[in-house]
């Protein structure tokens, strides 16, 4: 699971959970992979993602990569910054661990990089 995917996941599918966002990550295996850098794509994604959530997630994994906690208004021309963002969004992969609902502490296991968000009937 990449942090771009984490940025959009919530646990508000659980009965009684209001926001369920962001999910906490507890990782036991994180891998770094190489993904082709597409600056246009990253530039287009930045205003859409929740920057604070991305930054906190990356930091909790120890891979914040010197990214600023606040988004600088003039990021489009900053290639270095776009590369760092690319790395954090697409190249940091959580292989094993858990996603944790911020309201109920319900754990969603991540195995071989795939989060299991299936719920039991009584949780829906």
């Amino acid at each position: 699971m990449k942090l771009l995917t984490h940025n959009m996941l919530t646990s508000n599918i659980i009965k009684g959970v209001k926001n369920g966002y962001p999910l906490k990550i507890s990782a036991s295996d994180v891998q770094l992979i190489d993904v082709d850098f597409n600056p246009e794509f990253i530039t287009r994604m930045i205003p859409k993602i929740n920057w604070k959530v991305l930054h906190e997630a990356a930091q909790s994994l120890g891979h914040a990569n010197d990214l600023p906690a606040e988004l600088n208004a003039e990021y489009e021309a900053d290639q270095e910054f776009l590369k760092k963002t690319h790395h954090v969004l697409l190249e940091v992969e959580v292989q094993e661990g858990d996603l944790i609902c911020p309201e109920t502490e319900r754990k969603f296991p991540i195995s071989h990089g795939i989060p299991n968000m299936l719920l039991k009937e009584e949780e829906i």
Partner: protein
Amino acid sequence: MARIKLKQLEIELESVSVFEEPNILLEQYPTTPHIAARMLHTIQSRFHDIDGRTVADLGVGCGVLSIGASLLGCGHCVGIDCDADALDQTRENLEELEVENVDLIQVDLSNPELSPLMESSVDNPPFGTKRSKGIDVVFVQHALKMSRRSVYSLHKSSTRQHFIKKAAEWGVDIEVVAQLRFDLAKTFKCHKQKSVDIEVDLIRFSHRKK
């Protein structure tokens, strides 16, 4: 323009392994490389909805549409399925073909929750004939919730009028992009004939610009 030619795309997709034991209840008909390549190539060359975009693939199955979307240059793809075996098969396919920008999530479509960071959705949903009637409509509804631009989905041509009515209800635009013949080779034991040709529509649902 698409970054690889149709023929090349189909050849690449032929190396995607399909289910060893498809699950009849989940209607796991693999999307053939022939159909997948045509579907994706049309989506890119006519609507520019893959290259550089975020793409969802609901009912990812063995991953042929996700892998195709990646070959056509999508920025990020999320493949979603409830079935662990399908996801394992897709994961192996992704590793085998060194596809690095597809993420997989195990979730049941009766309760998905993804914020609409996705732009397009390319889906081959169940036709809704086995497990539960109406699952095809549920897939499209969820795909529309998740995607900011458009949803591409394969449906039996016999359900076309139904979807035209539904689209009006949902307030989205609908276009039948192509009609295809699906050659359902004898995937399941309950298929009596050796192979059955059925008519399938590639439908584009799109959100109206506000």
